[in-house]
């Protein structure tokens, strides 16, 4: 492992130098630690603290804010939407990422295909929301459609739909935008893991007469399952905090609101510090188990190093 220096063992070990030796590492990490404590750690504790107080932070109310979140109809809808996001968006990004990685692995134009899928990662959510307006745009059926999806609907003589307003479709429509952006991320990581599978293994299975589907499920997936787990947890963390797509595309209206957007509105539109803080604390609580898994995994890597 890492060798450490015995500071001052060569240069004359006077008292002052020795002090500097002890202080030295702390000087190196001081700016970072200061920043993190002031802007991350203290605010986190402060928010948890405020979640037990009334909306103007003047009196202690215990768990009232949490009780409100779990009983109020609008809030429950927000939680339900977040759950829908968590399940659908995670499964879709990881699954599609895996499928594209596996398919692209077999073609000569692999790098071009992967770049095409990966490009949306470089685009901001704001940019993406403008892009997708031209897919989801809705005009009443007597006017020309400028949204691609309704253009296709019209082509097949189907009724154009208000994809972003109709509660039957809008959450799915928003999730698709997110999937479009993040599939490339999953694909890149999973693709790197695929390259690590020994080709002998696949070929031996082919010799035994296994078809592509069973090779995929019996060999590929089990071999890269640790990576799939890492990608999945990363996506869960990202999706729990989902904000931009919804904020820009629907503003949380038409029953599409999620926790992070609701939190923003409670805090900055209504000045409800109690409920806002409780929402943020709930997000943190959901993430805690994943934080624990992450640290254990990193610890394990440290031991191997």
């Amino acid at each position, binding site marked *: 492992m*890492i060798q450490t220096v015995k500071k001052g063992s060569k240069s004359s070990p006077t008292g002052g130098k020795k002090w500097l030796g002890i202080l030295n590492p702390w000087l190196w990490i001081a700016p970072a630690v200061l920043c993190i404590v002031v802007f991350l750690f203290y605010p986190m504790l402060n928010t948890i603290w405020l979640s037990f107080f009334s909306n103007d932070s003047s009196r202690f109310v215990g768990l009232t804010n949490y009780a409100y979140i779990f009983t109020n109809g609008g809030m429950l809808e927000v939680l339900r939407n977040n759950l829908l996001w968590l399940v659908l968006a995670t499964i879709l990004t990881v699954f599609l990422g895996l499928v594209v990685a596996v398919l692209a692995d077999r073609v000569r134009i692999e790098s071009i295909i992967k770049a095409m899928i990966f490009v949306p990662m470089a685009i901001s959510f704001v940019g993406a929301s403008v892009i997708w307006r031209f897919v989801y745009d809705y005009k009443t059926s007597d006017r020309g459609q400028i949204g*691609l999806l309704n253009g296709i609907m019209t082509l097949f003589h189907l009724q154009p739909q208000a994809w972003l307003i109709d509660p039957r479709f809008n959450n799915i429509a928003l999730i698709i935008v997110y999937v479009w952006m993040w599939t490339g991320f999953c694909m890149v990581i999973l693709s790197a893991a695929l390259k690590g599978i020994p080709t002998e293994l696949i070929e031996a299975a082919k010799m035994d007469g296994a078809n592509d589907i069973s090779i995929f499920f019996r060999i590929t997936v089990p071999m890269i399952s640790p990576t799939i787990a890492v990608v999945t947890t990363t996506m869960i963390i990202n999706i729990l905090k989902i904000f931009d797509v919804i904020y820009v595309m629907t503003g949380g209206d038409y029953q599409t609101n999620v926790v992070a957007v609701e939190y923003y509105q409670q805090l900055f539109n209504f000045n409800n510090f109690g409920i806002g803080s409780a929402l943020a604390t709930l997000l943190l609580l959901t993430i805690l188990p994943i934080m624990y898994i992450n640290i254990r995994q990193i610890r394990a890597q440290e031991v191997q*190093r």
Partner: protein
Amino acid sequence: MSTIDPKPSSIAATKTARPSREVVQVKERSSTVRSGILRGLSNSTVTIITILIGLLWSVPTFGLFISSLRPASLIQSSGWWTAFTPPWQFTIDNYQQVIQAQGLGQAFLNSLIIAIPGTLLPTLVAAFAAYAFAWMKFPGRDWLFFGIVALLIIPIQITLAPVLSIFTTIGITGSYLAVWLAHTAYGLPFAIYLLRNFFGSLPSDLFESAHIDGASHSRFFFNIVLPLSVPSLASLFIFQFMWVWNDLLVSLIFLGGSPQRAPLTLTIANLVNSFGSNYEVLTSAAFISMVLPLVIFFSLQRYFVRGILAGSVKG
């Protein structure tokens, strides 16, 4: 016994593996003709499927690009796909209009003013800390490092209101300084984690020989560690730059009240809300905001991917 055991067996495995590959290839060649579908997907089918997926993924962006080149009246009356049938009407008016009239030029400049220090600052601060975590020994080093890694995934939302009140107390809300500090703090856990791993993987012989030569930590850091870590610093730099450039939430909260300092994302988000259907401004503005990230992405893709692979626990 058990220590010697794996070796011969692995040799045996490679020995048998080599001829088996040829056998498989011969076998496959004869079988694809007869039962290509039964055996799974043939290579040309896979190629076609992947091309279709790639095109499907590119259509939305392509649609915006075409729209941004069409006259304002047409954008709102007909689909962008009709632009491919005569009469062809393309124009760059939208771009000229948006740069001059909507203050997008200033917003582009603001984005740069925010993103460059917002990237350099955390990279520098993180490099110092990561070096100490990797190469110095001090009490509490490990738990401090794990504490920082744990903060990697906290939702930044939880910090926004208290940080805003800190900024208001010291009177920097709505200034660039507030956004720089916020981006530095939010970027640090990931940056420290990434750089600590890179620095830690440098061979320890380097360090020992530098120490024997009497080099101090700062000389070792600046003369040896930093030059050797340029690729990792590059991937971190790109990552952080993209993140800051594309960020909406941080600027919304800390710059929301001062539109003259708003970056592109915030300006465009406001355009979306206020203009609603003023598509000719939106299309060109959105495309302008994508230009720099796309250029960086295509020219430095290698480093970007490397950063993703090294830090895939980022939250």
